[in-house]
């Protein structure tokens, strides 16, 4: 298998849950190949199982059938080789920003590196997200956007094979979100990260992705279509605003979401 071509891989994945009403099939026939360094967004209406798919990649859930690989190894449970950024940041409130990241750094590099090197790594991760000034602050002392940046720094500090982000900016206001999107683009460009991001924001998907994976509505959701975003890097949101190709791509996604797979009123 050429791991460079298929860095993260899902083959015939099916996910069903046992509920009180019987078996609920959330995902079916999921086939996805993600190359190293690729930025993928999963987009779809709420309830389409996009977060479920991300949790499968994270190993927090195990597929009912099918196979999932990351860097040539089958995904069997969660692990620090896949950095997860949670929707609600999930920082531990009793640890400082430094402490939260250090916990991850220590877990991954504690066996091989000196305490000084671990500290250095932690500080570098904070510097990467421009939070050096908040090193000793507790999560309740910083803003929502800053918390999410610490969450990203924590995930990246482990030098994961792939960065998994579950609607990381969903809970933020529009201005903070735009700011963090710009920062994420720079970080991803600098670290050459492979990213899988769940979003319900069409603009975010087009702005950030190399490829947009559009999902049909559940139950038994699957990948309806994928769209290559062939806009040149680095991207600038101001320039894209007047770019006709950007608008074409954007309307492709909108068409998929609101014409082909419109959500029936819940």
């Amino acid at each position: 298998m050429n791991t460079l071509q298929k860095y993260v891989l899902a083959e015939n994945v099916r996910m069903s849950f046992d509920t009180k009403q019987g078996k609920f099939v959330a995902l079916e026939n999921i086939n996805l190949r993600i190359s190293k360094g690729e930025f993928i967004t999963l987009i779809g209406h709420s309830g389409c199982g996009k977060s479920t798919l991300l949790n499968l990649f994270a190993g927090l859930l195990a597929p009912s059938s099918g196979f999932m690989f990351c860097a040539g190894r089958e995904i069997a449970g969660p692990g620090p080789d896949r950095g997860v950024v949670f929707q609600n940041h999930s920082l531990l409130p009793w640890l400082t920003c430094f402490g939260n990241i250090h916990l991850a750094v220590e877990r991954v590099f504690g066996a091989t590196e000196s305490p000084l090197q671990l500290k250095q790594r932690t500080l570098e991760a904070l510097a990467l997200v421009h939070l050096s000034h908040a090193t000793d602050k507790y999560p309740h002392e910083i803003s929502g956007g800053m918390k999410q940046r610490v969450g990203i720094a924590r995930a990246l500090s482990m030098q994961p094979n792939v960065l998994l982000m579950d609607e990381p900016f969903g809970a933020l206001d529009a201005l903070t979100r735009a700011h963090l999107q710009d920062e994420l683009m720079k970080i991803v460009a600098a670290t050459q990260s492979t990213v899988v991001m769940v979003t319900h924001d069409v603009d975010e998907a087009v702005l950030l992705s190399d490829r947009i994976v559009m999902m049909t509505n559940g139950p038994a959701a699957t990948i309806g279509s994928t769209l290559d975003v062939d806009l040149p890097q680095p991207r600038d949101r101001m320039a894209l605003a007047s770019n006709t190709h950007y608008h074409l791509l954007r309307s492709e996604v909108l068409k998929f979401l609101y014409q082909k797979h419109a959500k029936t009123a819940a």
Partner: protein
Amino acid sequence: MAIKLTMSGKFMTATLLPQVLGIALFIGLWGLIALTSPNLPGPIKTWDSAVELFSNPFYENGPNDQGIGWNILSSLQRVGIGFGLAALIGIPLGFMVGRFDFLDKMTSPIVSMLRPVSPLAWLPIGLLVFKAANPAAIWVIFISCIWPMIINTAMGVRQLPQDYLNVARVLKLSEWKIFTKILFPATLPFVLTGIRLSIGTAWLVIVAAEMLTGGIGIGFWVWDEWNNLNVEHIIIAIFVVGMIGLLLEKILVWLAKRFSY
């Protein structure tokens, strides 16, 4: 300075004034009842007696006649030992009950059945097993402390947010790291609630337990003064027990605030 003055002025009218008024009303009512009931000493008589009593709180006149200070200290000591033993057993047990479903199901019928029993009902068992009054009183305190400790600790562990556990899972932390970095700090506020409830109950129970076991202690002292028909001292004891209980509560609330996130 001016701001400070108005601040304290506000504090006076908003907090201090109603409190002082309430206490004054209470004492007034007490005095009024005392006037109509000749056996009940009034506030002034009680105050005089208290001044005399607290002028020498640590005298020793044989085993059955010791200053009020010694009585209070030995009651606090019993509560301390009984509570300490209950914490030593109850908190780890609570962690295990909260973490392992099987253990929870195993213990929950026993805990639910024994929890509503007055701890004093356990006193004869204590006397039987330990064959002495003092350990029996400590045993009663232990019983009154153990239930809130187990229940609150277990609740804290059970209510651990899934988010934190997910962090532990994606980082693949060791059980020890999960305990020290996630489980323990997340559960600490619940453990402190358990401690607060335990101490509160223990302080309620110690007076009754000591009335039954005798020896030295604030509860026995109350009973002794009843036998001496020294009603002023009984009233003083009620205030003393109340104030110490309030003090313990305040300290533990302060402690809990320091460890809440």
